């Protein structure tokens, strides 16, 4: 079936409006597949478009498929020789070299233990090989990446919720940040690490994020106000 932007799409549907326009270069995002100049849908969801040449399928998903350049939250599960194994929720565990930390050398190993939470960037993500993580940028600086404090709390959520709260126009993180002092790491793999001053605030933040899944922007603002009020009454 031929579909267009904004439609609910199913795998196997054809998008003729993309393949017919011969002039401009088109970027096919997640959920779209190319089959000899014919664009096919490969996920269930809603077909979206941006800037007239970027197309993707906005879908509900819980299983993380690694993609190059994305930042993820992972748990170190094994420490063997030169690499750490990190569980990022994908089908295979990711590898993280001990040299991929800021200031790490062969003699000066980073202090990473099994069970630690890391915020890292995927540097290779291929279908046939295990994903590879790094905790430094191309200049060798840590920036926002690195080991997260063990005082935080980690939970999982769906991938579309992560995308929703990381959009630039989403009010959730701004409001929560304004009301509750906290530190947060949200991985594209649906794992969220959060650390606040006390346990109550941490739980409130976790609930606020999970509750935002099916809410609109206005509802998110109301919900955040509610949670902040309850929290301030408890203290």
């Amino acid at each position: 079936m031929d579909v267009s932007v904004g439609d609910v799409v199913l795998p196997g549907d054809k998008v003729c409006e993309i393949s017919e326009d011969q002039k401009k270069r088109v970027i096919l995002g997640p959920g779209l597949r190319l089959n000899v100049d014919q664009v096919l849908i490969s996920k269930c969801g809603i077909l979206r478009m941006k800037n007239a040449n970027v197309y993707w399928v906005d879908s509900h998903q819980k299983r993380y498929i690694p993609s190059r350049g994305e930042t993820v939250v992972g748990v170190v599960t094994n420490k063997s020789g030169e690499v750490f194994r990190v569980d990022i929720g994908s089908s295979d565990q990711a590898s993280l070299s001990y040299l991929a930390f800021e200031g790490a050398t062969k003699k000066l190993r980073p202090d990473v233990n099994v069970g630690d939470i890391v915020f890292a960037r995927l540097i290779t993500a291929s279908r046939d090989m295990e994903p590879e993580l790094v905790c430094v940028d191309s200049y060798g600086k840590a920036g926002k990446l690195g080991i997260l404090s063990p005082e935080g709390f980690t939970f999982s959520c769906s991938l579309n919720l992560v995308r929703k709260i990381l959009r630039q126009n989403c009010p959730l993180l701004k409001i929560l940040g304004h009301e509750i002092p906290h530190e947060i790491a949200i991985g594209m793999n649906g794992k969220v690490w959060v650390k606040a001053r006390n346990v109550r605030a941490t739980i409130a933040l976790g609930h606020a994020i999970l509750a935002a899944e099916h809410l609109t922007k206005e509802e998110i603002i109301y919900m955040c106000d509610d949670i902040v009020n309850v929290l301030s009454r408890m203290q």
Partner: protein
Amino acid sequence: MKRSKEKALQQKEADDGFGFFSDVITEEMKQGSNKFIVETSFVPCEDLIVGRLSFQGMNPVIERIMQEEEDAKREKVAPKVEADVSDNEMAHRYSTLVGTIGRKYNKKRGHTRAHIHKGESRSSAPKKKKLKFLKPQED
């Protein structure tokens, strides 16, 4: 004879090579145009931010980076317009300097001519008397 043999050999090699890679070269590679770019990540599609944030001094390092990013974004939106010296001030200053700087571009000959011209216009200026020989007094 030799040349045709070489040609046949080359043809055979090409066929062998094609057979060797035939399972790797897909229909897509043979016929498809390269007007599509495949992106596997949602991040560039939806312009997502990096999910590492800190609020109200929980992690000063992260907050400093966030501040720097915000400043960079703001600077990109509104490029710096203010200069040390405003245009009006500059124009005023230059108007007083026109003569001084103008002289720089005159040739030496032009320079003196300009002087003479100036002298003539000023008629009140005393003319130099021709010097005469002064006879010394004999007292």
